[in-house]
């Protein structure tokens, strides 16, 4: 589903050079749940951004569903995200002015779906929030907000779900629930999941774990 070939990302900050990701090569199979662990600054989020096309590698190539993304234009990346990729963030990043239902509908509306109603209801029901659709983010708990964010990420039936520290802002119980929900929904929808996390609990739900340090893969294996 996703293959990285010698991917690097180097930032220039004034006189200093920051090597956020250094020559990573890896492959994530269709339907696999991969967890990336590592301390702050190890390059987890950068790697997820690169896979999602939110940032561009300075070297190497990323292949999604066998297709090279090297040289994709901004518009092509946007189309790819709209069709094939869903994203969940640590701080939920729901639009505060919209209700839960509207937040879930947003990616569908942005790609021009005329009537996203039924799909939105399905997604809200899947995350157990069918009854909270008219509530705004400020009226929901952290766990509920992350469920809405998950429903939003899955609304357009992506092939790949990227989750960047989705439990980082939640207590451990709710965090575990969210990871289990991600796993269950991904299994159900046949989605590939790449999850960046600090939490061993969260990583335990994955099929495989990658440990990063200083922008490189330090260790790879099964979850403990």
């Amino acid at each position: 589903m996703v293959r990285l070939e010698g991917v690097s990302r180097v930032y220039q900050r004034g006189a200093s050079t920051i090597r956020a990701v250094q020559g990573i090569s890896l492959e994530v199979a269709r339907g696999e749940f991969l967890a990336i662990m590592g301390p702050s600054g190890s390059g987890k989020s950068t790697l997820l951004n690169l896979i999602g096309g939110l940032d561009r590698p300075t070297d190497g190539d990323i292949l999604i569903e066998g297709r090279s993304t090297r040289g994709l234009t901004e518009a092509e990346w946007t189309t790819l995200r709209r069709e094939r990729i869903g994203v969940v963030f640590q701080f939920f990043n729901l639009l505060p002015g919209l209700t839960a239902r509207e937040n879930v509908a947003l990616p569908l509306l942005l790609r021009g779906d005329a009537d996203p109603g039924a799909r939105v209801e399905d997604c809200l029901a899947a995350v157990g929030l069918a009854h909270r659709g008219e509530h705004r983010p400020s009226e929901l708990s952290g766990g509920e907000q992350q469920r809405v964010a998950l429903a939003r990420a899955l609304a357009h039936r992506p092939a790949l779900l990227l989750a960047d520290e989705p439990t980082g802002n939640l207590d451990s119980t709710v965090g575990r629930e969210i990871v289990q929900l991600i796993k269950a929904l991904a299994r159900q929808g046949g989605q590939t999941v790449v999850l960046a996390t600090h939490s061993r609990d969260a990583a335990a739900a994955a099929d495989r774990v990658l440990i990063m340090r200083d922008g490189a893969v330090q260790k790879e294996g099964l979850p403990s």
Partner: protein
Amino acid sequence: MTVFRLLVWRHVIGEVPRTALTVGGVALGVAVYVAVATANVEILRSFEQAILGVAGRTTLQVSNGTGVAGGFDETIIEAILAGGGPADAPPVPTSHANGVLLAVPVVEITATIVTEGGSVILPILGVDLLAEADVRDYRVTDGSANDPDWERYLEPDAIFLGRRLAGRHGFAVGSTLEVSAGGLSRRLVVRGLLEGRGAGASTLEELAVMDIAAAQLTFERLGRLDRIDLVTDSARSVDEVSRALQAFLPPGLTVTRPDQRNAQIERMTRAFWLNVSLLSVVALLVGLFLVYNTVSFAVLRRRREVGILRALGLSPCGIARLFLAEVALIGVVGAAAGIGFGLALSNGVLQTLARTVSNLYGEVPALPQVTWAHPAVLAQGLLIGVGVAVLGSLGPIREAVSVEPTQALAPKGYETAGALRVVPALAGAALMFLLAALAALPGPVQGVPLFGYLSAFLVVLGFAWLSPLVIRAAGPCLRLLLPLRAACLARLAADELGRAPVRNAVAVSALMVGLALMIGVSTMIHSFRQTVDLWLEQTVKADLIVAPPAWPGSGPAGALPESLRGRLETIPGVTAVDSYRDVRMAFRDTPVVVVARDLMVHAKHSRYLFVDGDSRTVLAETVRADGIIISETFARQFRLGQGDRMTLPGPRGPVEFLIAGVFYDYSTDGGKVVLDRSLYARHWGDRSATVFPVYLAPGADPEAVRRMVPERLQGGPPVMILTNGDLRREVLRIFDQTFAITYALEVIAVVVALLGIANALLCGILERRRELAVLRAIGGTPAQVGRLILWESGLLGLAGTVLGLGAGLALSVLLIAVINKQSFGWTIVLYPAPWVWLEAAGLALLTTLLAGYWPARRAMRLPVAEGLQYE
């Protein structure tokens, strides 16, 4: 490494576009102020120079206080030099006993000459050339190295032109000038050029001078003078000499100091300047909003930084000082840029205002040029720039220092302050409107509508108070009107604006002020123009006007002889000819226009619109009672009315008249007095006419009669013939020119407001980087992000437009019914101008979209990954 560089400078240069917008807003406000203030100073200085420069060493002037052309008997000069007492009184034995060292006779001729650019007014000074060196500091040169040829200089056709004046019109020594004055046409030869010296050099080089004897002979003014310039003994008080002289001068002659005329002009133009200056202040007000906006954002964005600094031990005062240093820096840079820009603008503003002053007050100073920056104006510009910046920042800074460190350090959204409370906002707006209504009631303070301005300010404040409510209403309104799927971006934009109604209200208020000013002033001008047009239609009935060339700028001396009237009356198709004479006289030390005309002819063929009474009846009563009628502006200015009595300065002393009526008049700001021609001739002995209004018989062809006029007046002075339509067009042209400057100021206010919108959007984008990045991450295209910002811009524009329309209409009523009436005394009927409103609203919406273009482009280019970073 200083605290300033670490904590202030870093922010100023860290976000250059936003800093530049704020500096630009302050600069534009200061520039308008400096340009208008410089123009004000320069025009008054040019008046002063024109009066004092020509006056030279003159300390007192004896003149005909009645303002009537024809002057006074020149023999009075002997009495003055004799030391007191009229000519037939016993002479005072001691020479210069009254303190007069020198008495120089002057004749003033207002002539017209024809140049390549058309008819030009040429004021000629007839002076004693041989005595000039003692009074005015200039040298006559004929361009050769020879000694002055006095014999030729004193010939009746010799004229001397100031070097600048001659250069402007392409005249040189030896050029001939075809000159018309007082109904006479003469050919004069330029015998020399005047080179000015000293402080008044430039003014002196704008003069046209003849020897007094030549001027009297050439223009048939033998034995008559217009003025006597006196140089008094410096050892004696000028006022004391003035009083002594006034005591023995015959009635009708007055002694004044040359600078008194200047004070009169200052008094006369005060209301006009105040209005223009206040318009320029509006640009500053909008600049104030802009600073408020920027600092509010800075405070919000640096919330955490403030918390950290507080936690590190910086006191609230220290935090305030940091922000104040930043805004002071913005103020100083903005003021410096504004002063430079203002001085660059000032010449254009100066020319426009000089023309307006000439149109309004009938004064024609030599068109001034900005030659130097007045230090007081520069200091004011700097103070205003810094003052506006500091004042605009006080609210947000207070908020910054009042936040507790723990609160500031807590992770929150960028918009946490300024929550909207609906009831207090509504109550505040209602209170402002109530106070505005109350402030509209009192009269002017020393002729200045101070309470009227206060009322306008309160109206604007009331609408500003409403703006957060309007912004917050936009979301629910769109929610009702449009389903999310139909206008997803519009809804998102409205929700985004509604999240920060107070913050966005500042940008909306800035636009509202600019638009309200535009709509208020445009409606006032439109109503004024319609009123004047209607007034012209109802009161200017003459089919043709026979006038001297360059009328109406030719002044009292640009007169035509009475004999022309009879010749005009003999033209077939002419049913009546009025002879209209206008002169300026001083009434209560203020120059007013006095018009003498054949009131019975006017009553029969035309009319005045009287405040009370029918035109024919009031005019007949005026003639019967040897009374006068006064304009509404005159009545208001001097608190006089029908049935009151007033005096005018006559050649034989003050003449008292009964006021028989008050009429509406829009031809002059200073007020007008009208009396019958025979009554005027009886008291002032002046039988000439300024123009002849000609009435045609029904069915007569105006063009045919117009063609016959030159033929019938052959051999007489040159004239121009205007049709009724020509005259009305000319009046309306002058009207439009007069108000040109207000449009320029409105445009500047709107531009500053647009900077405010752009600034607000730009700040919003910087603060919402993550939100916009999320939008991109979930599938939004850069174009959709750009459109979202444009929707926000458009919605801000819409809110500003809705409020601006309301405030503009309220302002127009205040301008018409209170401010204008109290400033100038004109009654203006309010004429709605829906297309003006639509045009202004359309323009505001269009330009706010333009203002959103740059921020939208910036938002489209924001790096998504950076936007998603948490720290």
